[in-house]
């Protein structure tokens, strides 16, 4: 294709994109002469250029459209119908341009249909205006023809092309000089400021700069080895210049996100017509820039989401009226920079996600069991829309709902290292937030070593680095075959890079120390264990060879400063390898949330064996740490097993007589700590950590065992930790927390779950309190009625019949116990429930599994009582 033609096509396409947007604006604001002038000028320019290039089809179309717009300019109303026809004309022009670009000539075909439509509109609008101006609502006299009929006559009359040409010639003859002058003026103004460069040129420039960066890195590496090199100063300068050049070239690749949004007003307008909805589209931050490559990759997902919002999200005007919302729906697209990312949000004020339908579909597709989904919070359920093949629209419309739904969007966004999140409030609206890196070509990466090989981990997904050492603050702990890191009270799943890559010479090697690269992918956080960490480097991402692209662990490779090629780790691939596909990850998250939010229903349990083959379990949250100590370090003192642990003697308690403290090898221990004191339960083997409902079905007479429950399909003894704590701590507690002579505080414990009553009673007794436990608020009130005196009440919130709030209100309402502090125990710690609790008269609010928190709260409340 010759340069002139190419330039024409590019220029015309750009102009048409602008016309698209402007026309939609004009339709909404028909009195804005400025917009119209702008459209008119653009169309006119297109027409003029087409004539000059000898492109008759384009010219005829542009001319007909221009005529209609000329009428608009003469003050005639821009009806929806008229704008639709003009938009259709523009689409046709685009089609012709496309094949022009491909075949270098106009395609065959006729546009009489569109031109006829345009003519019709031009005439009709004229006629309508005349009707209004000259013949206002007059009854037809006999023999007269109605305007409608006249119009039909116009419509049916074949268009006469020669006449058209004549009209055109006349028109251009007059209008051209003015328009030309305007155009030249524009060129003079902008010509010095911007030039058109092909993308290829920029891409090539980028490649060259990448090479330069590599060479500079190599030089720096060499100079690093020779301390007093005279190259140092010039190299420093070269380095700075390279950095600036890199930045400059990157800047040329940056484009405003508005470029991807350009077609959106038109899309929304067309959807409005198609769906019979009224939608207002608001675009914010269109000037926010990001890399062209990234822009291309998110264009389609964004379009898809916009269509979804218009089609499924927003209701019809009638539905909106019924729901008490304004008829016109609202979609807002916004973009802004945040760190090295761009955040794009698309929000509508529609009906939100249909949680019930997502639930049904998730269960139907076997993504999750019915029992599990019932316990999931809404936000978790909503995330299922990202699962593969998930589309909730029951009817397939031609707008969206083709089965390639949000999963495709998510995949696209994952591929560029982005993350997507959804928030939906039923009846109020739905919003998606996308966070993507600004550029992909040159990224900062952490260079690490594993099994003697170096790898790069993109800095964007690295949260922090943790050094794990045997006996240090952060230690790698093992749960059967899984390794985890306890980091700020969270268990972080770990994966050894060498094992993931199959380069571990000794697969069974004990993992005790190493560097942990804490990595985040979406909402999933995990640790990658490596042997050492070198430094961060700006690396130029080069695609993997097609022969190696199937390896999901790598996203590409790069040449380091010393000339070596290394692989770039793909955190998405690692996340998958760690064993969490989108759905299973969600279930895990849901399970965690469940524990936090509805503790009674599912609990993290540590399953182990001690003294018998039957598994035993204890709530994980009660355990401070899992240890494996060298059995030779166990000492016998005063008839008790002890071990030196973190500078103190820690008593070891055997779970039962059948558990023998080992004489040699590793002894697994469950460590329980309270303040500075620790005790350990000696067990035979730690089996697993599971999430399950804790429902004790058979209570036990055996001391130390609360009863049996079915956990993961197996009958499991639930261990009463409270029974063992005093065996180690008894005397200590008495001495420290309850000095002789001091009164023992009386605690009233209310919980409908016997498990919690059984678990907490000994814990509180061990802490020096006299505990009276009851199973309902009524019983508790009855006790108070009887005149029993308590120093503090601890109550569960969710209870049948009378809940914790009502109990607190009842206590507050009774003048007899104005001083009685009430502490709420709850699995639901939300700002809302705390506020409600305050109103009901709770003195404190403690999470259900927070044993230490409860004791601290008790001490505080009883101290207050003492002071008062």
């Amino acid at each position, binding site marked *: 294709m010759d340069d002139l033609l190419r330039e024409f096509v590019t220029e015309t396409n750009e102009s048409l994109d602008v016309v698209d947007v402007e026309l939609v604006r004009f339709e909404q604001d028909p009195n804005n002469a400025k917009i119209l002038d702008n459209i008119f000028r653009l169309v006119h320019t297109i027409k003029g250029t087409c004539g000059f290039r000898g492109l008759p089809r384009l010219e005829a179309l542009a001319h007909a459209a221009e005529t209609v717009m000329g009428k608009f300019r003469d003050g005639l109303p821009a009806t929806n119908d008229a704008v639709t026809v003009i938009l259709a004309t523009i689409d046709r022009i685009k089609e012709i341009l496309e094949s022009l670009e491909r075949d270098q000539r106009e395609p065959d075909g006729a546009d009489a249909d569109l031109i006829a439509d345009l003519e019709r509109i031009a005439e009709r609008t004229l006629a309508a205006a005349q009707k209004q101006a000259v013949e206002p609502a007059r009854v037809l006299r006999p023999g007269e023809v109605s305007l409608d009929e006249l119009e039909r006559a116009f419509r049916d009359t074949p268009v006469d092309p020669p006449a058209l040409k004549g009209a055109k010639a006349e028109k251009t003859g007059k209008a051209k000089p003015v328009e030309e002058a305007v155009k030249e003026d524009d060129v003079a103004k902008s010509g010095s400021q911007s030039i058109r460069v092909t993308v290829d040129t920029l891409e090539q420039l980028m490649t060259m700069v990448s*090479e330069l960066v*590599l*060479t500079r890195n190599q030089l720096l590496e060499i100079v690093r080895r020779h301390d007093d090199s005279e190259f140092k100063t010039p190299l420093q300068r070269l380095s700075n210049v390279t950095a600036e050049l890199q930045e400059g070239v990157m800047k040329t690749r940056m484009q405003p996100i508005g470029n991807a949004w350009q077609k959106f007003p038109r899309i929304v307008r067309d959807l409005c017509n198609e769906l019979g909805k009224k939608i207002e589209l608001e675009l914010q931050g269109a000037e926010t820039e990001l890399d062209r490559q990234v822009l291309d990759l998110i264009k389609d997902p964004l379009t898809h989401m916009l269509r979804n919002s218009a089609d499924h999200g927003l209701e019809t005007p009638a539905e909106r009226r019924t729901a008490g919302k304004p008829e016109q729906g609202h979609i807002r697209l916004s973009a802004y920079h945040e760190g090295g990312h761009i955040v794009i949000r698309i929000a509508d004020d529609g009906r939100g996600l249909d949680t019930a339908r997502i639930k049904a579909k998730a269960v139907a597709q076997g993504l999750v069991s019915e029992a599990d989904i019932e316990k999931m919070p809404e936000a978790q359920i909503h995330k299922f829309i990202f699962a593969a093949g998930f589309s909730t629209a029951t009817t397939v419309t031609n707008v969206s709902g083709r089965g390639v739904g949000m999963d495709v969007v998510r995949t696209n966004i994952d591929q560029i290292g982005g993350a997507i999140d959804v928030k939906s409030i039923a009846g109020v609206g739905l919003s998606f937030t996308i966070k993507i890196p600004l550029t992909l070509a040159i990224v900062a990466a952490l260079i690490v070593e594993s099994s003697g*090989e170096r790898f790069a981990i993109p800095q964007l997904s690295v949260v922090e680095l943790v050094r794990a050492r045997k006996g240090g603050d952060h230690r790698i702990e093992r749960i059967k075959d899984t390794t985890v890191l306890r980091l700020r009270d969270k268990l972080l799943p770990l994966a050894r890079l060498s094992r993931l*890559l*199959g*380069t571990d010479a000794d697969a069974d090697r004990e993992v005790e120390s190493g560097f942990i690269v804490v990595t985040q992918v979406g909402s999933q956080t995990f640790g990658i264990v490596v042997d050492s960490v070198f430094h961060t480097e700006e690396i130029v991402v*080069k695609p993997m*060879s*097609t*022969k*190696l692209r*199937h*390896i999901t*662990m*790598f996203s590409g*490779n790069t*040449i380091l400063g010393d*000339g*070596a*090629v*290394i*692989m770039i780790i793909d955190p998405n691939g690692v996340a998958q390898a760690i064993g969490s596909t989108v759905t299973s990850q969600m279930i895990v998250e849901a399970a965690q949330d469940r524990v936090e939010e509805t503790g009674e229903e599912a609990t993290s349990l540590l399953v182990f064996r001690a003294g018998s083959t039957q598994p035993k379990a204890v709530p994980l949250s009660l355990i401070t740490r899992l240890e494996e100590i060298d059995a030779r370090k166990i000492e016998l003192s005063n008839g008790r097993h002890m071990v030196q642990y973190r500078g103190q003697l820690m008593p070891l308690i055997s779970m039962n007589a059948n558990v023998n403290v080992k004489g040699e090898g590793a002894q697994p221990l469950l460590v329980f700590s309270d303040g500075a004191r620790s005790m350990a339960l000696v067990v035979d083997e730690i089996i697993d950590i599971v999430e399950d409902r804790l429902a004790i079905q058979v209570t036990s007479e055996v001391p130390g065992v609360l009863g049996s429950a079915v956990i993961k399909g197996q009958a499991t003894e639930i261990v009463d930790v409270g029974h063992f704590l005093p065996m180690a701590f008894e005397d200590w507690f008495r001495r420290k927390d309850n000095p002789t002579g001091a009164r023992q505080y009386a605690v009233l414990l209310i919980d409908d779950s016997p498990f919690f009553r059984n678990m907490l009673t000994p814990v509180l007794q061990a802490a020096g309190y006299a505990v009276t436990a009851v199973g309902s608020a009524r019983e508790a009130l009855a006790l108070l009625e009887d005149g029993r005196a308590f120093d503090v009440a601890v109550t569960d919130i969710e209870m049948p019949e009378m809940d914790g709030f009502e109990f607190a209100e009842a206590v507050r309402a009774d003048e007899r116990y104005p001083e009685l502090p009430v502490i709420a125990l709850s699995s639901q710690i939300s700002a809302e429930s705390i506020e409600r609790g305050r109103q009901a008269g709770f003195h404190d609010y403690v999470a259900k599994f927070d044993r230490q928190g409860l004791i601290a709260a008790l001490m505080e409340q009883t101290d207050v009582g003492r002071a008062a």
Partner: protein
Amino acid sequence: MTSENTDRNVNEYVTAVVGGQLFGLPIRRVQDVFIPERLTKVPLAPPEIAGVLNLRGRIVTLIDLGLRLGLVREDNGGPAMAIGVEMHGESYGLLIDSVGEVLKLDSAALERNPINLDPRLASVSTGIFRLDGQLLMVIDVDRILDISIHAAAA
């Protein structure tokens, strides 16, 4: 495809030895011959991919021709050599024992593969030339690089 048949039907071949067998590669497909250095092994890669290396700023994927063809490469005292080839804009190196001279051979003398040829060799060979004292097997570079199919079959 026909441009190499300049005069008569003579084609030029770069010859290489792998595991004692002489191979010929059409010269128009050969970019360069180099000694592979600073090879980076790629974990989880198919076994015949020896690794990747940096050749003048390009990342080259090195394919062990011995493993690819089911031959045992021989240590002949000298450094291993690699023949640089390209496919779809990507650079590859074929790891061989030693490189020989460039031969001009008349395509009329190209004989079909014997039917009892090892299928792994047969799948990449376009024919055999009978030279003095030895056979030269002409290999098709595209088929050599078609590793995915081979890996799937293996």
